[in-house]
């Protein structure tokens, strides 16, 4: 019984982890290559989910909605890049934080106007409905397993692109020394655009997958954004590998903390006190982890070379 419970929570933690990785990957790439803090990355996650809602109601097919929403998320990311972000690359971090904060305010409210403030949802595709039996009378949802698989597959794909292709090579070079890359004749603006659009699409992908199991509502990107920042700071900014490791770490720590922290405290505290302290510690566990990591390794676990 307990072993199954732990297994279920580990799976839940992995599922949160891959979701965070998809958001954090774009964030860390954009930061690593362009030295650009994009607070608006979370709203791209939210937009992915909302676009999927709309395309699902138009097509009635989850996978068609997925593809269309991905394309729309990509297009939207490129439009945002063109209108706002492009003008901020050579500004300091404070300006970037403020302007992208403005984008968050605008899009959160815009979504509320277009889609309404009430939470929306769309169903899990039939193909992925049902559960995988884990014990008598209890199974783990196939959809969540599919999310983990899709997330891991994306991670592998990303790894292959970054380490095995020419664009990936430029991205790595850009993260280490963007000026040198530019001096060698690479159109750095185009590279920025590609990285940006790709990051927006990954965040959108995470949002689309999260749509059926979480509620789609304005502001849903904000909490994910903060978590994604924790992920990339722990992982080392600019490092995809670091983002992957720390996304899974954060996903597991957060999920397991919330499930078991109260019980752990009950071992040596009075039940009333444990019920009080447990949830509090559980919700700040990842921030404690981050503060601890930064205390001992001020540039994260896997600092990208050259910064």
């Amino acid at each position: 019984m307990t072993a199954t419970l732990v297994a279920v929570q580990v799976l839940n933690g992995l599922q949160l982890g891959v979701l965070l990785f998809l958001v954090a990957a774009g964030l860390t790439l954009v930061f690593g290559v362009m030295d650009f803090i994009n607070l608006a990355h979370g709203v791209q996650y939210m937009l992915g989910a909302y676009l999927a809602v709309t395309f699902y109601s138009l097509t009635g097919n989850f996978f068609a909605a997925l593809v269309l929403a991905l394309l729309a998320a990509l297009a939207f990311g490129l439009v945002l890049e063109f209108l706002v972000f492009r003008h901020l690359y050579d500004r300091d971090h404070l300006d970037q934080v403020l302007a992208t904060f403005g984008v968050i305010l605008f899009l959160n409210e815009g979504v509320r106007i277009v889609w309404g403030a009430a939470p929306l949802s769309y169903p899990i595709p039939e193909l992925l409905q049902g559960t995988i039996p884990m014990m008598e009378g209890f199974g783990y949802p196939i959809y969540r397993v599919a999310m983990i698989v899709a997330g891991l597959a994306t991670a592998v794909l990303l790894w292959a692109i970054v380490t095995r292709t020419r664009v990936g090579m430029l991205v790595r070079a850009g993260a280490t020394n963007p000026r040198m890359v530019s001096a060698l004749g690479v159109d750095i603006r185009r590279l920025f655009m590609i990285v940006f659009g790709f990051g927006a699409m990954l965040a959108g992908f995470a949002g689309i997958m999260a749509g059926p199991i979480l509620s789609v509502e304005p502001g849903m990107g904000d909490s994910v954004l903060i978590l994604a920042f924790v992920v990339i700071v722990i992982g080392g900014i600019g490092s995809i590998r670091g983002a992957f490791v720390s996304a899974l770490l954060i996903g597991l720590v957060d999920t397991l903390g919330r499930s078991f922290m109260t019980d752990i405290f009950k071992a040596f505290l009075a039940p009333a006190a444990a019920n009080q302290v447990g949830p509090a510690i559980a919700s700040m566990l990842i921030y404690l982890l981050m503060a601890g990591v930064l205390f001992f390794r001020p540039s994260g676990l896997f600092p990208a070379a050259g910064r």
Partner: protein
Amino acid sequence: MSRPTTAASTGVRWSVPLVLLVLLAAVPAVANAADMGFAISLVTRVMIYAIAALSLDLILGYGAMVSFGHAAFLGIGAYAVGIASAHDEWNAVVTFPIAIVAAGAFALLTGAISLRTRGVYFIMITLAFGQMAYFTASSLSDYGGDDGLTMWGRSEVFGATPFEDDTAFYYVVLACLAGCFLFARAVVGSRFGRVIAGVRENRLRMQAVGFNPYAYQLVAYAIAGMMAGLAGALLANHAEFVSPSYMSWQRSGELIIMVVLGGMGTLHGAVLGAIAYLTLEEVLSHWTEHWRVIFGPLLILVVLYARGGLGSLLRRSGGDG
């Protein structure tokens, strides 16, 4: 032409704060005469946030420490007063120092860790500490938890109730703001303040000259935390309510906006920024509930085209134009 410019900027240094002080002092009389009592409460709130923004400007504008968790100090100050009231301690002479010391202690503790990091890591670690404070407040189920804690009244001073009357409270807050402003001015002008600004310009050189940047920055961080704690204590009294939302990261973002909007590193800019931000919010939200749709792009435009904020516009029109 250096002398007139200097004279003009010295003029702005004192004329803007003085004009602000006179205008703020006149608000209750004008509001009562025009039968707009709500304005007193609004401007009280604006001034409370101005104190918090002022404290942030002290470290952000002069020390280049981009604290993204500044709202935590505000919230801790507010909770100190709120929790004390829940235990039937209403005397401001007791609760306000508790609020200030509590916020200062939190700043000292978190600053000691945060200031080991630089740049974006500093932004993120202060955010993390802000979130910790937020979740701690949310989990205080004895004191309202997520829903917040209602105070059944305002603080007293040895049984007297100078805070109960809105106009009297207004002047208390104005006095706090003026006091904080003068204190911050003194800090910035002192040898200590010059070291802080020196570290902002060139950390290595300051070290070479023999200063310990870390210690100076930490003290500045704690001072800013204490000042924000005072703002929090006033905020709790103003709303007669404290809630975890005082510490949300959006609130920290708003404080940064206020400072940048008004112009960093001027002190009176932070006050102007608080006035501009909250007035804009008030006006736009009367106009439409979706005021953020207008405010967001406005913020982007300010960042892109009005560098230096409102303060620099004033300086430009006062100095060069």
